[in-house]
């Protein structure tokens, strides 16, 4: 059975400390290595780099006033892309709001993304939501929204439904450690336990919820231990170790596929940047806290791994960065040249069919456009 082959020899285990595969120098513990193919390892790394490049560009665009908002994932790429890489293509992702890396890994088009960032007529969500709030059904990726934690029980229902229909897929849901304080976290994990739903709860413990440090979020020993309250498996993973995240996600997915229920994976990582472009962390966070995390950057570590494995050379780095940069710039150009959505996009799609009152309101809004 394929599953067996990919199972890591030494698996992440509840209460056994932080699971890791790679050292800082990129060397791996062979027993734990998820043994990615060259192509897969490169795709994983390249997506991390592309995510970082995209992040930098979006932040710049926001500073220039060309887009209204951006929420990035600097420092968390290994967690985000690594977990996507641990899934099968048929698995479904319920995003939080920082997982563009997971979408890119699955082939989400930069152009589609950029239309969302600019809220254009080309936006698949029709300019109705903020930047970074896209939906990507075609790649098995849900609907980004702002309310913290609401996606957690939804993922449970989705995963349960898929199993109910005889599928062998799992659902993975992303959230931050701050979200673990919401009622939705609790009810989601509890329902998953009782319903034996094949769901992976992927907590990006990036240590901060805007200005609130994790120590003020909960007094529990860690996040993973919370799994015990629901009779599900909980593991801690080095979230800056992309291979560890791949291995842990794969194992959780295999368990889910084989009827062993849900797993809570706590990925220990760090929000190196601001919460979003609306935030300024200097007000509440000392830069000294950030420095060591920058040194443990997940992208650097993964590159060292590729280099050791002999499947990455300096010119590759330049190529991937240049290509990413060019692609982002091209997408920006397209989006900036695209008109804003039609007026009717406000009034359509509230329901499958438009009721009388929305037809009237649309007329009213159209008339209002003619007012001085």
């Amino acid at each position, binding site marked *: 059975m394929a599953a067996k082959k990919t199972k890591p020899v030494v698996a992440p285990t509840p209460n056994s400390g932080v699971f890791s595969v790679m050292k800082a120098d990129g060397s791996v513990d062979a027993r734990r290595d998820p043994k990615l193919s060259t192509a897969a390892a490169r795709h994983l790394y390249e997506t991390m780099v592309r995510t970082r490049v995209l992040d930098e560009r979006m932040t710049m665009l926001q500073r220039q006033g060309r887009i209204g908002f951006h929420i990035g994932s600097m420092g968390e790429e290994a967690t985000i892309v690594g977990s996507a890489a641990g899934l099968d293509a048929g698995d479904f992702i*319920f995003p939080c709001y920082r997982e563009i890396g997971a979408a890119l890994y699955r082939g989400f088009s930069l152009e589609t993304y950029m239309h969302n960032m600019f809220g254009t007529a080309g*936006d*698949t*969500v*029709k300019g*109705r*939501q903020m930047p970074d*709030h896209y*939906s*990507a*059904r075609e790649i098995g990726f*849900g*609907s980004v*929204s702002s*309310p913290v934690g*609401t996606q*957690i*029980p*939804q*993922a*449970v*229902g*989705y*995963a*349960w*439904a*898929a199993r*109910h*229909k005889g599928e062998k897929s799992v*659902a993975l849901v992303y959230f931050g450690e701050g979200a673990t304080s919401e*009622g*939705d976290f609790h*009810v*989601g994990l*509890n*329902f998953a336990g*009782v*319903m034996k739903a094949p769901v992976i709860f992927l907590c990006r413990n990036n240590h901060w919820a805007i200005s609130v440090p994790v120590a003020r979020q909960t007094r529990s020993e860690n996040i993973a231990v919370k799994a015990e309250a629901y009779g599900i498996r909980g593991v801690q993973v080095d979230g800056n170790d992309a291979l560890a995240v791949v291995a842990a996600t794969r194992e959780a997915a295999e368990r889910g596929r084989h009827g062993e229920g849900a797993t809570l994976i706590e990925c220990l990582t760090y929000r190196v940047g601001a919460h979003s472009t609306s935030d300024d962390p200097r007000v509440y966070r000392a830069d000294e806290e950030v420095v060591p995390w920058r040194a443990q950057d997940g992208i650097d570590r993964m590159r060292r791994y590729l280099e050791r494995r002999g499947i990455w050379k300096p010119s590759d780095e330049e190529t991937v960065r240049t290509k990413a940069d060019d692609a982002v710039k091209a997408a920006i150009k397209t989006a900036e040249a695209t008109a804003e959505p039609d007026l009717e996009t406000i009034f359509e*799609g*509230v*329901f*499958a069919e438009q*009721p*009388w*009152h929305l037809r009237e309101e649309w007329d009213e809004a159209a008339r209002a456009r003619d007012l001085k």
Partner: protein
Amino acid sequence: MPTWNMIQAINDALRVEMRRDPNVVVLGEDVGKFGGVFRATEGLQKEFGDERVFDTPLSEGGIMGTAIGMAVYGLRPVPEIQFSDFIYPAFDQIVNEAAKFRYRSGGQFTVPMVIRTPCGGGIRGGHYHSQSPEAYFIHTAGLKVVMPSNPHDAKGLLLSSIRDDDPVVFFEPKRIYRAAKGEVPEGDYTVPLGKAAILREGRDATIITWGAMVHEALAAATTLEGDGVGVELIDLRTLWPVDIDSIVDSAKKTGRVVVVHEAPRTCGFGAEIVTLIQERAFLHLEAPIKRVTGYDTPFPYTLENDYLPRAPRIVDGVRGVLNY
């Protein structure tokens, strides 16, 4: 045609649709083996198994959150909230998630789901087993809101609601669960959403109401008929989107309108009905539109009959608009 009460009609609607559509699942507190505290889901688990009819942990937020996920996947969940007084822990999932999923995803994801929930007073349930919270949901863009007043409509509207591609909040007036009886067709039929029922025609005054209050209004209309007053009685059935033509036409015809509801008056759905009519039938109105409603207090226990808009208050309201 059998004569059934509301519970039997609702139970039958669920059975009919679960037989027809394997995507329908029923979940909630006590809906499984017990068949629901009002017995609306009785026998369903036995027929459809505990994967399609099951008890959840005690969490309305969890019921709603997981049901949304099921609907996003493609099922048609029919979650039950045991009393609509307890729907608020699920409020965020309903108003911020279910109601906005289609819109915010540009139609990529939809939430075809029917939230069944008993509502209303008159059963000596006090604050927490008597509320009529329909206005909260009518105010929320993206939700349909339904409240039947009799077994025939209950079954037909529930079947329409389950087949609807958007989330529907389906209120069941628990006071008439067993009291309202009537002939109900067996098998499949639907009552369309968005269409009111004109239960009586009349030229002198219009009463617009829904749910259990339909029965008080019928009693009031009978009394008024004895006095020679012809009342047009409209049972909205679907509260939102409301059947605008029926209410405006009737208001134009009679020029005198009374809206009756159990919920607290202020910002209740009555205010919206009044406003829609005055916007569209202003010159036809012979008197201010009158609200006969519950009061702006939590629902009381001992004195609930003072709180509820009973027939005499409705009669008085109609007389008020007639004598204006």
